[in-house]
């Protein structure tokens, strides 16, 4: 036990935050000793490969599936390996908003946008930790990613609706069908199936084989793995003739690893993620010489609720009704406490600080606000008791022990500002949605706010070709690609909502296309 513990700490330190902090020192020494593929812990290749594919993809979320589709279309044989019982990872439970800069949907609504503006928003929220070349690529290719979902996957989108997540200066987030990431994962899976590939579920990847020549040549798996039993399933070795693509997602559910990165994020914080969002591939990528950067930037989602498990449906109400068309309030004071359209970190930090003082926060919207939500969501939220409905402001105040006068004054002031178009004290960090109106139409709706651990901004350092970079040489690790939440440097300190899908689709496709171009070995 203690042996294991020390092992983890050492790797966590050297592999991630350690490397980031000591960057200069570690790097220059690494470069001096550089030999291609001088990774710390190489493995002897297995004597026998049980199976062979051109491209082996780890994971089955947005990024993995996009990579697999592209690699297969380019003529490679492809294996998609997923440890859980179901394909889709966090992607299939995601909230279904997709940032596209300059989409036809924006044009129809008269919203002006550009890749440059989106990049500016991402880098501002990301505190400049974002690697600009990656951000630029993703923003520039966002329309292409959208077109791909329409032309390649046959997706259809509802016109006239758009979401504005905190930190975006304009409405640019497209709603996926069903308000769920499943609306995009299921078409990806269907496309892949039509190409003759289906994810192999319950297949845990335990090892990446990186040979002495520095090239990644295959993986070790446990087939028939039953999460979370580490030793379940049968060990097999799969050869990757051309390349391995890592798209194993984040580690928000892995309390031990997440506390190595950010000790504040103890077990008392729930997560919005699927239970399999754990760190084993992060550790393995470090071990074979990937450079894992910015691992301690872990996003806590401000809009979640204590009245349901995980992500649930509350974020739709708290963001798409209350933050966009209503107010977030400190129940103790009856006052607003944050710019409702500020980025997630600003908002989650504000709520957590108040909660630590024993003060609780609520998201509040009127009937007009909730009329902006996708049909059906409110019924479910009310039925599940996650959002509560009140006929009068008095009822709201008494339900949350909120001082009525202060509460009424807050609303009166907000409404006056909206009417007069005064931007002071209104959500002033961004352009307000055009359809904003004073909050005055009963009945009223409330959800309680509880931040939950949501997203890992850091991860494998990659270049714009989606190649994973070697920690010792700063050169691409031959035949290793990575995309999606397993990578770092795109979102910097704070990921803007809806930008993960864009990142996953753009970089997943790039990874798949390039993986298929690698020369086969052996």
């Amino acid at each position: 036990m203690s042996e294991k513990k020390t092992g983890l700490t050492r790797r966590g330190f050297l592999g991630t935050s350690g490397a980031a902090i000591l960057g200069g020192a570690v790097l220059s020494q690494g470069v001096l000793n550089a030999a291609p593929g001088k990774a710390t812990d190489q493995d002897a290749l297995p004597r026998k490969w049980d199976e062979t594919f051109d491209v082996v993809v780890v994971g089955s979320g947005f990024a993995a599936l996009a990579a697999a589709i592209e690699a297969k279309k380019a003529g490679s044989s492809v294996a998609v390996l997923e440890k859980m019982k179901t394909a889709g990872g966090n992607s299939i439970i995601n909230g279904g908003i997709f940032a596209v800069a300059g989409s036809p949907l924006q044009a129809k609504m008269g919203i002006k946008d550009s890749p440059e503006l989106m990049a500016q928003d991402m880098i501002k929220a990301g505190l400049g930790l974002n690697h600009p070349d990656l951000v630029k690529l993703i923003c520039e290719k966002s329309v292409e990613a959208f077109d791909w979902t329409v032309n390649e996957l046959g997706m259809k989108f509802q016109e006239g609706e758009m979401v504005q997540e905190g930190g975006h200066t304009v409405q640019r987030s497209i709603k996926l069908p069903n308000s769920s990431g499943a609306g995009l994962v299921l078409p990806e899976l269907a496309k892949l199936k039509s190409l003759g590939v289906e994810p192999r579920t319950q297949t845990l990847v335990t090892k990446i084989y990186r040979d002495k020549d520095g090239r990644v040549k295959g993986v070790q798996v446990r087939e028939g793995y039953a999460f979370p039993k580490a030793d379940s399933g049968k060990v097999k070795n799969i050869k990757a003739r051309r390349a391995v693509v890592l798209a194993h997602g984040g580690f928000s559910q892995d309390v031990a690893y997440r506390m190595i990165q950010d000790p504040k994020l103890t077990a008392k914080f729930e997560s919005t993620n699927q239970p399999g969002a754990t760190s084993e591939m992060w550790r393995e990528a470090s071990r074979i010489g990937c450079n894992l950067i910015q691992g301690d930037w872990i996003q806590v989602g401000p809009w979640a609720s204590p009245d349901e498990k995980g992500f649930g449906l509350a974020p739709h109400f708290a963001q798409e009704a209350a933050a966009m068309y209503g107010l977030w309030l400190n129940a103790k004071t009856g006052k607003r406490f944050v710019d409702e359209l500020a980025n997630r970190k600003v908002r989650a930090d504000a709520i957590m600080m108040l909660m630590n003082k024993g003060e609780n926060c609520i998201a509040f919207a009127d009937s007009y606000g909730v009329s902006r939500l996708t049909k059906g969501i409110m019924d479910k939220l009310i039925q599940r008791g996650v959002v509560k409905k009140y006929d009068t402001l008095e009822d709201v105040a008494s339900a949350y022990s909120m001082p009525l006068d202060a509460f009424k004054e807050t609303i009166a002031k907000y409404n006056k500002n909206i009417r007069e178009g005064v931007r002071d004290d209104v959500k002033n960090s961004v352009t307000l949605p055009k359809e904003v109106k004073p909050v005055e139409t009963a009945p009223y709706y409330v959800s309680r706010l509880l931040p939950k651990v949501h997203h890992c901004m850091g991860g494998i350092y990659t270049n714009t070709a989606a190649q994973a970079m070697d920690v010792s040489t700063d050169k691409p690790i031959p035949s290793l690609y990575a995309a999606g939440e397993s990578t770092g440097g795109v979102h910097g300190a704070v990921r803007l909502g809806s930008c993960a899908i864009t990142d996953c689709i753009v970089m997943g496709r790039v990874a798949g296309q390039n993986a298929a171009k690698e020369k086969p070995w052996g």
Partner: protein
Amino acid sequence: MKFPSIANKLVSLACALMVGACLLAAPKRLATAKPGQCKACHSDKPVLPKDHTDTKGLSLADCQGCHEKGSKTSLVGKLPLMHAHQMKGVTCTQCHGKGKPEAVDKAKCVSCHEQKALTEKTSKLKPQNPHESPHGYQEDCNLCHHQHTKSENFCATCHAFDFSTP
């Protein structure tokens, strides 16, 4: 959460031994067992209370005579589903074929349990019809409905939905 490492080798050995032991004690899956003939497979360890009616020759409908659906003693979610199948006269070979048992895919399930009808049947379940998962999970029956182990409420992986799964 623990993942494979050298330090885990001992643990894995212990697990392997335990799994081995469990397998030895597992009930036989006798293709020739007659409905209601519990002892044919569960010969090592009696599975019914001492004073339970003799089940020999009983059908599932007979069981439900006492174990009424919706009552406290309902069998829903308590028995691995193959028991219900078996007692309704759906025997091993009807799903797994004769000879070496084949894996069963969804087509087999929906050849009897028409999917539309199933979806309709659960349409009143709150807070969500499990057969209309937005994540598409209804396409894999076995995520919830297990035959040889207890069924599970797969939605509960992420949601606090309180379903008892047959």
